């Protein structure tokens, strides 16, 4: 599974990577350290021409320069990108951030776990739900191809 992690904090990047290392399915995490980079990767611009389309996007809200909310807005306004589930991953519990994210069609809002063990558990649950339980747009086509005569 391809994950795009939009996160500026180096420590958090390492912790999220380590948390997903323990999950069952192999995941590849691409990191964008700011919103601009995230959009370049998603649009496969310049040096990112060969970037994989992520199955899921983990998006921090508190980013340098361009905010996570504005990145979310752009993704959800783009017909080519808006089907990719965006999970907000933030330390904020502020109501304006939660409501603001769902108003802009975030698929889930997750508060960053405080303990590493809880973060691992969160990674496991994300994997179980988003990578196993849920059918994502790409998966539907693949399944139909196999079943239909």
């Amino acid at each position: 599974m391809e994950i795009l992690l939009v996160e500026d904090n180096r420590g958090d990047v390492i912790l999220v990577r380590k948390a997903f290392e323990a999950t069952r399915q192999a995941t590849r995490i691409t990191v964008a350290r700011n919103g601009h980079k995230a959009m370049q990767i998603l649009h496969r611009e310049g040096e990112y021409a060969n970037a994989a389309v992520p199955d899921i996007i983990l998006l921090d809200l508190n980013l340098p320069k361009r905010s996570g909310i504005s990145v979310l807005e752009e993704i959800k306004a783009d017909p080519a990108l808006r089907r990719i589930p965006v999970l907000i991953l933030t330390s904020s519990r502020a109501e304006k951030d939660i409501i603001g994210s769902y108003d802009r069609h975030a698929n889930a809002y997750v508060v960053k776990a405080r303990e590493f063990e809880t973060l691992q558990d969160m990674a496991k649950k994300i994997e179980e739900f988003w990578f196993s339980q849920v059918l994502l747009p790409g998966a539907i086509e693949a399944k139909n191809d196999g079943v239909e005569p």
Partner: protein
Amino acid sequence: MKDAAPVVIAELALAEEFSDFAYSVSHDLWGPAQAVVAFTRLLKSEQSGAFSEDGQLYFSLIVDNGRKLQEMLDGLLLYSRLNTIARSICEIDCNAVLARCWTQLESENKLLNAALDAADLPRIRADPARISQLFYHLIDNALKFRDPEKPVLVGVSVTTGQKEFLFTVRDDGIGIEQEFHDDIFRIFRKLHADEEYPGRGVGLALARKIVTQHGGRIWVKSAPSQGSMFQFTLPVIAGSDV
């Protein structure tokens, strides 16, 4: 007093700036403290063989103090939220608030034989989240500083005056020396080592802030080994904003 109004406005702006500042400090400092704790724990679990017994002790001290810092920031955040989040006043049944706090604290403290002696409490007009916090911290305090030699009994009563309610929360706990009766309401002020009584010294500071925000006063009557009696007033009609 021609200058009075601008001075008041300047003071209000300063208060607002300070509350924003306290909120940012407590919220934004959390991340770095979190990173210190998380990576020290990872280092300890992944490479503990490389460190001596002293080294292991230093790990524990870094983690313990990092957590302590986080808990203090949590406390500061709660405190500053009382300034940044507006009060929403409605009618509250204090009996229900007290019952909820008691149930929650009884199970948190795993107290099997704690008894609550609650009088019939009035309905008041106040901010429900804050009043709940107020009762929670006063009851928490009464349970935490219990006398291990005595059965735990917490009493809550009220006297209704013309203009204000006088609430009393009393316990048979270890009590407090007179000289600290004001001190205990200051944030982070503790009278015991962490090993004796855990906690960050935030609860009573929150309680005082909440009472004064509702136009009331709070104080304690207590002596060592004599239990404590916390009393606070709340106006019968929701008071002017602070």
